[in-house]
């Protein structure tokens, strides 16, 4: 990571303050006001819009393999996805890392 300690702390403070203001917004100073319908409708999809775009390059071009597609990682990711979708969030972590380790040991 190309950051000086000062830059890191400024960054973290900004992220902490910004996150706090989001959490504090309505409870703190917007009180009885409600979000307009179109705003809630869009906010609902922010998480599911940001995270897949973030994870896609990490899966397709992992740094650990120098950016080469790694079939083992893709299979492990699929296992994590299926378990997370059907069973549980924590199960997904175990399924993903477990599949990765088993395949790496076998192949």
């Amino acid at each position, binding site marked *: 990571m190309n950051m000086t*300690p000062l830059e890191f702390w400024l960054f973290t403070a900004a992220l902490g303050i910004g996150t706090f203001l989001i*959490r504090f917004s309505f409870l703190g100073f917007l009180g*009885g006001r409600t979000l307009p319908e179109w705003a809630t409708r869009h906010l609902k*999809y*922010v998480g599911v819009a*940001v995270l897949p*775009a973030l*994870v896609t390059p990490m899966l397709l071009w992992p740094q650990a393999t120098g950016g080469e597609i790694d079939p083992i990682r893709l299979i492990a990711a699929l296992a994590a996805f299926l378990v997370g979708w059907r069973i549980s969030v924590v199960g997904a972590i175990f399924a993903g890392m477990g599949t990765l380790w088993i395949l790496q040991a076998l192949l």
Partner: protein
Amino acid sequence: MSDTMLSFKDSSLRSAFWRGWWACAPFIFAAVPFGLLFGVVARNAGLDLLETMGMSVLVIAGAAQFTALSLLQDNASVFLALFAALAVNLRMAMYSAALVPHLGHAPMWQRAVMAYLMVDQAYAVAGREYELNPSMRPAEKVAYYFGAMLLICPLWYVATFTGAVLGQAIPPEWSLDFAAPICFIALIAPMLRSLPHIVAAFTSVVFAILFAPLPSGVGLLFAAFIAMIAGAETERRLARKAGQP
């Protein structure tokens, strides 16, 4: 919290606090592994112990912390990393709005503490409880909220700390670089509970690939923006088709 503490002589408040605490107990199994992994991943990214803890204490939002870390590690611009991590947290504005009818009566400083402690799992537990139990007194709702948050949040710090300390001892053959994407997948999969959510996620993946040549973080924001609109628009059209004029 001293109001809540003082009125702990009131047994109904004490019982509301502990009910909140216990209702969040199953989430120990979610918060602890995430916190551990964040600690490990942060140390591998080059943060020292204090920096790792600083992030978990100041931000307490796992997905945003992972987002910020991944983008910084990928040498994205600091502003893009900040913007993306805050975007991941925007959902909490909805929680904040939803909690106003139940907790809005509390004094300002208590609401500030509540805001600091507002995490997904505890919000989900408290929000459901308020809906199922409309007869709760306002003070009981506050006690219940603090009960729910005060189980998860300290665990988040402890788990981060443990991960950050142990992480250095884990050999590279364990491929812990892969823990971050696995955590994101674990967070995404259960979100796909309706067609608009699936459309948003799929759009996000497609545009992330198309925009991959753009500088790190830029493609992410464009892809996320388009995907958000795709999800919201799908919802609107489905509702219209379902009979609303």
